[in-house]
C-alpha cells in the first residue's frame, strides 16, 4: 500500500481525473507512427501486466517494484496444452533497455526449457531465431513477446521436444 500512498506524497492528491489527463498523453496505444517516450510505454505495460489483459496465459510485471528505470521485468508463460510444455509454468526475465521500444528487449528463460531459439545452457532467447525479435517493431511489447514465445511452443517443431524435468532453472 505504501506505493499507492507514495504516489500521493509526492504529488498532490491525485484523483482519477488528473490521471486520465496524463493517460491521454500516454495513450497512443503503441502506434508505430507516434514516438511514445519509453517510460510512458513501460508504464502502460506495467499497468496491463497488473490488470491481466489478455487471455491469462502470460503474465508480466516488474521484477523489482521499486525499479524506477522500468528495466527489469519478469514474465510467466503457462505452457500450452497438448504440447510437451503443458502444465508447466515458465518463468522468464525480460530486460528493456534504454532504447526500448525502438529496440527489442532481451529475453531469457529462467525455467529450463528445450525449444528452438533458446540457448540450452543459459536460457537466453536468441533474437535472430524468434521472428518478432528479429523483425522488431516499436508497437510490439513485452506481452507480445511472451505470447509469441508461447505460440512458438505450439509449433510443430517445438511441441514434441523432450523437456527437462520440471522445476529446474538455469544457473545464472
Amino acid at each position, binding site marked *: *500500500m*505504501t*506505493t*499507492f*500512498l*507514495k*504516489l*500521493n*506524497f*509526492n*504529488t*498532490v*492528491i*491525485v*484523483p*482519477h*481525473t*488528473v*490521471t*486520465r*489527463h*496524463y*493517460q491521454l498523453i500516454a495513450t497512443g496505444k503503441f502506434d508505430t507512427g507516434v514516438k511514445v517516450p519509453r*517510460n510512458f510505454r513501460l*508504464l502502460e505495460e*506495467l*499497468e496491463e*501486466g*497488473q*490488470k*491481466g*489483459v*489478455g*487471455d*491469462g*496465459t502470460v*503474465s*508480466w*510485471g*516488474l521484477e523489482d*517494484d*521499486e*525499479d*524506477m528505470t*522500468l528495466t527489469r*521485468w*519478469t*514474465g*510467466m508463460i*503457462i505452457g*500450452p*496444452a497438448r504440447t510437451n510444455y*503443458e*502444465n*508447466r*509454468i515458465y*518463468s*522468464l526475465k525480460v530486460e528493456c533497455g534504454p532504447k526500448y521500444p525502438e529496440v527489442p528487449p532481451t529475453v531469457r528463460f529462467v525455467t529450463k526449457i528445450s525449444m528452438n531459439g533458446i540457448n540450452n545452457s543459459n536460457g537466453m532467447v536468441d533474437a535472430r531465431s524468434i521472428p518478432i525479435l528479429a523483425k522488431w517493431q516499436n508497437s510490439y511489447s513485452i506481452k507480445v513477446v511472451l505470447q509469441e514465445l508461447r505460440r512458438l511452443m505450439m509449433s510443430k517443431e517445438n511441441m514434441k521436444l523432450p523437456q527437462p524435468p*520440471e*522445476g529446474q532453472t538455469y544457473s545464472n
Partner: protein
Amino acid sequence: MAENSGTDPAVETNTEENAAASATIIKVTVKTPKDKEEIAIAEDSSVAQFKEEISKRFKAKQDQLVLIFAGKILKDGDTLGQHDDLLLGGSSQTSASSGPGPSQGNTAGTANPSPAGNLGTPQGSGPSPTPTQPPNVLAGFGDLSGLSNLGMGSANFMELQQQMQRQLMSNPEMLSQIMENPLVQSMMSNPDLMRQMIVANPQMQQLMERNPEISHMLNNPELMRQTMELARNPAMMQEMMRNQDRALSNLESIPGGYNALRRMYTDIQEPMFSAAREQFGNNPFSALGGNTDNSGVQPSRTENREPLPNPWGPPDASAATTTTASGTATTTSSTTSSTTPSVSNPLGISSSSLGNGMFNSPGMQSLMQQISENPQLMQNMLSAPYMRTMMQSLAQNPDIASQVARPSFPKQQLMQQMLQMFAGGNALTQTPEVRFQQQLEQLSAMGFINREANLQALIATGGDINAAIERLLGSQPS
C-alpha cells in the same frame, strides 16, 4: 502506513466463510483459463488463505493451484499485502490442474509444490485461452476503485509525478476541481493520514529537521484539523488569509511594533525560507534583502515608496497569503513596503496575481510558483488560524512583542511564547489612540498641542516618540 483509506465498509460478504482477519477487504479478480471470478478477501491474509478461498470457489484442489501475478508466482507464505499491485487493482491468474496432475514438480525450495496446469487442459476443453475474457477487469476495492486507474502505483516515478504536479499547478482550476472531489475531501478529513503523508515527503522531512517547529505543528492534531478544514475550503482559506493580513497591519502600528516585526522576520523567517528555499532552489529574498535597507528607526517613511495595498480589496490584489510552516513569526510583514501582502506568505493561491513591489521581484515569484507547485508544502504552511489569533494578541500586547523581537531570542522560546499568547486568547485590537495614549500625553507635555497631528505622526512612526517629534517638527517649522 499501508492501509487503504477506503476500507470497504459494505463488505461483500464472502459467500464462503469470511477471510476477514482485519477490516480491510479487497476484491481480487482471479482468472483461470476457463473463467474469472472476483474474490473478496482480507488484505492481510496470506496467500495460502487466498488459495483456500480460490480452491473453494473454483472447485479445485488447493495444492494444485498456482497463483501468478504480474509475472511472479505468489508463494503461500506471503501475504497479499506484500503485493501492492494486487491491492491496487491487479488481477491474478490461477492455473490449476484438476485432471490427473502430473507429479509434483520439485521446484527447488519454494513453498509452491503444486504442479501447474491449465484448468481447461486436462479436461480437454479446446484451446486454453478463454475466449470471452473482458480485457480490463479491474478489481477495484471499495471506494477506491476509481483510483485504481492509477495503476502504476507499484513504482515511484518521480519524474512522472513532477510532471503531473506541474500540470496540476499550472492550472488552478484543476486544483479547485481536485479539492472538490469528495474523495480528496474524505482523505483530507483524516488527520492521521494527512500527517503521515506530509511527514513522508522527503522535502518536508528536510524542512522538519531544520525547523522543529514544523514538527510541533504537525503533531498538534487540533491544528492539523483546522488546516485541513482550510485546505478543503478554499474560500475559507482566503478569508483567513485576509484576516491575517489585516492583523499584521495592525501589528505594525504598535509602538516598537515595526521593529519587532522586522527583527522577527530576520531572525526567524529568513532561516525558514533559506531552508525552504534550498528545496526550491531559489533565493527570492536576495532581491528583498536589497530592498530592505532601512534606517531602522524610521523605516516606513524612507522606504515605503509603494502605495499600501488595499487590504480589503480583492484577494488577488492583496496577494493572498499563507504563512510559512513554522509557527513562529512567519507572518511578519514584509520589511519593505507593504504590510498586508506579508512576505511570510509567498504562497499565493494564484501566484501570478501578486500586486506589490516586493512581490514582483522575479525571485519572489518563482519561489511562489515553486511552492505552489508543491502543494504539500502549501498545506503545511497553513497555520492560519493559529497565526491570526497570535498576531492579534501580539498586537495588543506590546511588551511581549518587544520581547519577542529581541534578536537573541532563541527560536524555541519564541515559539512557546507565541503559543502562550495564542492561548491567551483573542482580544480586540485597540485603536491607535488608545495604544498611543502614553505617547500622546508625552507629546502634549512637550508642547505639541495638535493632538491630531501627534496621532498621525505616532501612527506613521509606529509609536516612536522621537521619530514622531522629528516628523512633527519637520512639517511645522518652529
